[in-house]
């Protein structure tokens, strides 16, 4: 049989036309999917080990934003589960639940989110899905109402007659800057995900952050005074609420996940594309999170490895949380300085009597904060 005439063969199978390039290698669609899945499943293999050691099946929660990254993660994990289920002796390493926090209750309501949710539940019939509105954070985190009221201070009056939905809307409306809005939204989202995970008895949350996003989160966290929280917000490890955080996509960049989506037919129609950040927005009107995402993506085109190194560096930091540490009731970060830090940045804002209770990062995002 004569060999296939290929213009640009895939470097892995050498049997198909390459459709994309990454890390100085050309791949066909299937080989690239296998390459990416391998990176993820290697990180997920620890659960099987854990099951073997403890004799209990670890329960995982995967928060799905319906965006590119978490959808690709879901697709890869689902593929693995289906392969396992096809075996005679089924041995799944974990139990998985998927949580979608309705994007319509976070961003502006849009029918496309409903369609995407319908599509995703249909595409993965063997998995358990749940959908919650953003304001259910008040249900799943019991003292959240009190925390929010105390946190917001005088510039926000909570009206108890209002529904949870309206209370959350008023609170979010009381925050003035784009940075603080994005910051507090992510704090509340994390709390809701953790609260839900706990209600299900899940020991681990599997986040769908790409390596690009982790680098941006690291830099943004540092810029927002949340450096001490990096040990769990971007590193694999125990969060302050006793639920472990895991980031199995940390070896793949956002552009690679977009390439994955491009070659994976099952994902079309499921993924809601990210809102593009317009180039016309003035820098000062961006949120710090957006600025960092933009920075990491543009720099990543030229310096992919350097950007990937940022999240790897953050992952090396070691948590020192002891039982006597005071943690922020809102975000779970350290109140005051981490043990061993003798800096006086905190003392500079001691005139503010709230700072004794909430952490430095949260104080910066407080409604009416001067910064």
């Amino acid at each position, binding site marked *: 049989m004569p060999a296939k005439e290929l213009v640009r063969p895939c470097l892995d199978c050498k049997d198909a036309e390459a459709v994309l390039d990454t890390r100085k290698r050309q791949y066909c669609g299937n080989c690239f999917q296998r390459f990416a899945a391998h990176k993820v499943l290697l990180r997920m293999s620890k659960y099987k080990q854990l099951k073997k050691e403890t004799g209990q099946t670890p329960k995982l929660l995967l928060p799905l934003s319906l965006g590119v990254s978490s959808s690709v993660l879901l697709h890869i994990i689902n593929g693995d589960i289906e392969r396992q289920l096809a075996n005679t002796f089924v041995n799944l390493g974990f139990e998985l639940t998927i949580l979608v926090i309705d994007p319509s209750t976070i961003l502006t309501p849009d029918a496309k989110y409903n369609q995407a949710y319908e599509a995703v539940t249909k595409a993965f019939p063997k998995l358990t899905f749940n959908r919650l509105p953003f304001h259910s954070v008040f249900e799943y985190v019991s003292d959240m109402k009190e925390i929010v009221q105390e946190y917001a201070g005088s510039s926000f009056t909570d009206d108890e007659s209002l529904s949870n939905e309206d209370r959350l809307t008023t609170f979010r409306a009381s925050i003035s800057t784009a940075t603080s809005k994005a910051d507090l939204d992510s704090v509340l989202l994390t709390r809701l995900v953790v609260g839900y995970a706990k209600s299900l008895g899940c020991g681990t949350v599997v986040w769908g952050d790409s390596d690009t996003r982790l680098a941006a989160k690291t830099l943004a966290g*540092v810029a927002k*005074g949340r*450096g001490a929280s990096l040990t769990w917000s971007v590193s694999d490890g125990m969060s302050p609420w006793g639920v472990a955080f895991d980031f199995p996509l940390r070896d793949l960049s956002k552009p690679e996940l977009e390439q994955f989506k491009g070659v994976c037919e099952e994902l079309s129609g499921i993924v809601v594309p990210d809102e593009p950040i317009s180039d016309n927005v003035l820098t000062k009107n961006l949120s710090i999170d957006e600025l960092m995402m933009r*920075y990491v993506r543009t720099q990543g085109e030229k310096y992919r490895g*350097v950007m*990937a190194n940022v999240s790897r560096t953050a992952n090396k930091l070691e948590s020192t949380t002891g039982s006597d540490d005071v943690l922020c009731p809102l975000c779970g970060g350290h109140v005051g*300085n981490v043990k061993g830090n*003798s800096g*006086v940045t905190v*003392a500079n804002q001691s005139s503010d009597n709230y700072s004794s209770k909430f952490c430095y990062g949260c104080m910066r995002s407080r409604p009416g904060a001067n910064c």
Partner: protein
Amino acid sequence: MAPTACFNCKEARAVIIRPKNRHKLCRACFLEVFETEVHETIIGTNLFYPGERVAIGASGGKDSTVLAAVLKTLNERYRYGLDLCLLSIDEGIRGYRDDSLETVKRNAVQYDMPLEILGYGELYGWTMDQVVAQIGKKGNCTYCGVFRRQALDRGAAKLGIKHVVTGHNADDVAETVMMNLLRADLPRLSRGTSIVTESGASDIKRSKPLKYAYEKEIVLYAHHRQLDYFSTECIYSPEAFRGSARTLIKDLEKIRPSSILDIVKSGEDMAALVPREVNQSGKKCGSTAAAEDDVGGCGSQNGRTSGGEMAAMEKELAENESAESRETEIRLPKGPPSSVHLQKTVKKQTLGHCERCGYLSSQRICKACNLLDGLNRNRPKTAIEVSVGLEDEEISSTLMRQMERTELTNS
């Protein structure tokens, strides 16, 4: 529009919007607030002791001039009992240093402080202009940085002073934090933010009292006190990791002015979270490490970074990654926990003295002497004897030229 009253005293007319928190202040209140904040930093960190002799590393630029002025004011106001003097280093960069040194000389008179000027020429036999003539504009910051660090220590030792303060500000520290994150430098991440860089072995302590002061406020302070300073950037500064970090920080400041201080705070916290085995190697190797990680060496760029560093690191990372797929990982069988412990030991550097100059070094020969070696090797003995003792490369080029000439005559 009616003039706004000062946020602080509510009486005088506000003339300044504080870059740090956008408070509107009058001139007197701003100066007062700025000085008080530096005072709080000094008290909060127990920076000085009464009767201490302190040398101010003075470049004639805004940071060190403000530092000298504020320290003099605070020393008198709060009776620190410090014995202050100015210490200047002359790198020998014509057009940059000549004028700024004149400024330092005037400052010495204005603040009534003794001044000591040490030149690279007399210390090392090379001025920066000569170094640049020799090695070109790329990578010369390494020389400048290494030489300056030793020069400050040597100058202080010459004056019998054990504490040198430098004018590094919050912007510099924030830049360093971001830069060390970008280049994945954990040991420096753990040291770069601390207000005092002190080493167990060296008896000279370095500190930066303006660590929490914004660069913009330093400029405002200098302006409103009408301080005499010299404003220029080093003419040899290249672009690198620090450049990238600097751009990022300027953008962040536009979004949220407090973010510079927030980065400093994050940096301080992260320093405490750097794993001990990484951290230790830095602390144990003493002054060389402590001295090397000084931020913002020449006021514009950190000494170590040269133009292509970011690209070079990217190349290395990409090569490592492609090599990874060709490697087979060999794992040792899991042994008792002691073997895990063994893996974590990081080679410790022991501190000694440079065999040549006697300066503290973890190597047999200190970095400055190493660099000097390289420079001196290529220095022609005299300007006329160019053809004597040429290296191979140059011989070949001379030959080439001769051959070209022959060809020309032939044609």
